[in-house]
């Protein structure tokens, strides 16, 4: 018996439908969010006509500007730091068997995933306060380090996954050719690893941009990020201004990702 020609071994009935539902579920709220950022009224639920007023008011709101800039600075620094150390950690822990202390290392790297934010937040408040009083330094680096820490596992995972799928023989050959480990890393490992690194950095960036509770507890004077600013609004009233800010941020993120995507595509060809 021969299989009918149209038989697709990959097809599973109903899966495409579920996937479609999944995308609708994911996008419906976002579309509403974008739509209501153009609402003429005060409400984030009742449509009262088209207007740019919330974009104008967000643009003119100094607190929003400062918070946005700060969020982006922290997210950029934290994702850079987290990704760099995650690459190193992944190189050290992948493609080797278990080693002495490996359980402890994995436990530490994954710790931020396992501990509810509120716990870390309070712990950091207490700990950072001690350091702040002792050193007198109250700058931005506390937040950057705190964000880096909980971004590490998110950066680490895709890098490690990529590394596991990579061929060792190439590097071994390169080691014979080039000699120093650093050159091997730069010329052979890194180019292959790059998609994983990018994925890790992007994930870390988003996670940092999203963080509310830890930032709220660890921030010093004048260090409101966009999420903590929004948390402050929760008790009062939420206007479409918030929608406008998120739409802009979303547009920036999407533009970034699409740019990455196109770049990596053109490189492949």
């Amino acid at each position, binding site marked *: 018996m021969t299989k009918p020609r149209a038989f697709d071994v990959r097809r599973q009935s109903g899966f495409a439908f579920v996937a479609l539902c999944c995308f609708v579920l994911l*996008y419906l709220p*976002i579309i509403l969010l974008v739509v209501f950022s153009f609402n003429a009224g005060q409400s984030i*639920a009742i449509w009262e006509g088209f207007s740019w007023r919330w974009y104008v008011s967000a643009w003119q709101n100094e607190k929003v500007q400062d918070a946005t800039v700060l969020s982006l600075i922290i997210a950029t620094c934290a994702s850079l730091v987290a990704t*760099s150390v995650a690459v190193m950690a992944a190189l050290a822990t992948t493609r080797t068997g278990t080693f*002495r202390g490996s359980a402890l290392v994995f436990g530490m790297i994954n710790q931020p*995933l396992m*501990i509810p*934010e509120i716990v870390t937040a309070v712990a950091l408040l207490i700990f950072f306060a001690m350091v702040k009083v002792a050193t007198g330094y109250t700058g931005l680096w506390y937040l950057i380090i705190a964000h880096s820490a909980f971004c590490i596992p998110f950066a680490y995972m895709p890098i490690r996954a990529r590394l596991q799928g990579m061929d060792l023989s190439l590097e071994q050959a390169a080691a014979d050719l080039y000699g120093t480990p650093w050159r091997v890393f730069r010329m052979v490992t890194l180019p292959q690893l790059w998609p994983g690194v990018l994925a890790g950095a992007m994930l870390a960036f988003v996670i940092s941009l999203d963080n509310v509770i830890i930032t709220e507890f660890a921030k010093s004077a004048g260090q409101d990020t966009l*999420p903590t600013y929004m948390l402050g609004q929760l008790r009062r009233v939420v206007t479409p201004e918030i929608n406008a800010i998120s739409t802009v941020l979303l547009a920036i993120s999407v533009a970034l990702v699409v740019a990455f995507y196109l770049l990596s595509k053109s490189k492949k060809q």
Partner: protein
Amino acid sequence: MPNGVRTARRRWLLLTPALVILLFAATGPLLIVLVYSFLTPGDYGGVVWTFSTDAWFNVVVERDFFDDTLSFADAHLSIFWRSVKLSLVTTLVAFIVGFPTAYFIATRPRETRDMWMLLIMVPFWTNLLIRTFAVMEIIRNEGVINTGLIQLGIIDAPIQMLFTEFAVTLGMVYVYLPLMVLPIYASMERMDFSLIEAGYDLYASRWRILRKVIFPLVKPGVVAGSILVFVPALGAYVTPRVLGGGKQLMLGNLIELQFGQGRNWPLGAALSISLLAIVMVALFVYVRSAGTQEGRHD
């Protein structure tokens, strides 16, 4: 120098930056939480440095303040149970939706797969608070769903969805779904489809193929995804606060209450460590199932 020593030294050198950051901003502070759980609460928040096991005692047992009888801390236990229950349901639903989606993406032509994954990731790029608000707008009484159903004549009065356990679960599924799809897709992408073809040659049904061939191959991804969804759901704070309407606390909110208005930091610390214990149990299950899996491949 022997080769082994050199590798070991290089390994620790490479690990140092990550470990230092984690020690400074994650592990170290956690030890403080552990210490705090054995102290006495300060009058207005904070702690007094006197050893006490009261906090741990209060996690599970309570002394009735009217007749001084001891009983199980019913309030805490039911909040624990709700958190575990809702997190499990969230994980299950995320799997039911996420698995076919990952499969769908993995079976697209190679050139378009990245684009589909991008579509999964974009919502993740929107702020968590905002996404939660967006879900609220959809399920509220005047929201899209209720208005739509009423206009279609299916119902007369809006269904109360907001501020229910359903709302919290929906919100958490929505927020954490990408964390399920991502690892499943990663393991499916590397899947060898000739195995499936072989399965069909042996006259297996699609369902049998799914269960006996595909699922075992992607199991590590499924387990990783489940952990990634279950753990943050268990400690969720924002979603239950916004969508649950504060009527049904989850663990994250209970802990926040103790550090905030309740002014009982040691109890908050003890509850945090208890939450951690639940997570550890979940991870233990993970390590065991992933361990057997890796053993088979290596």
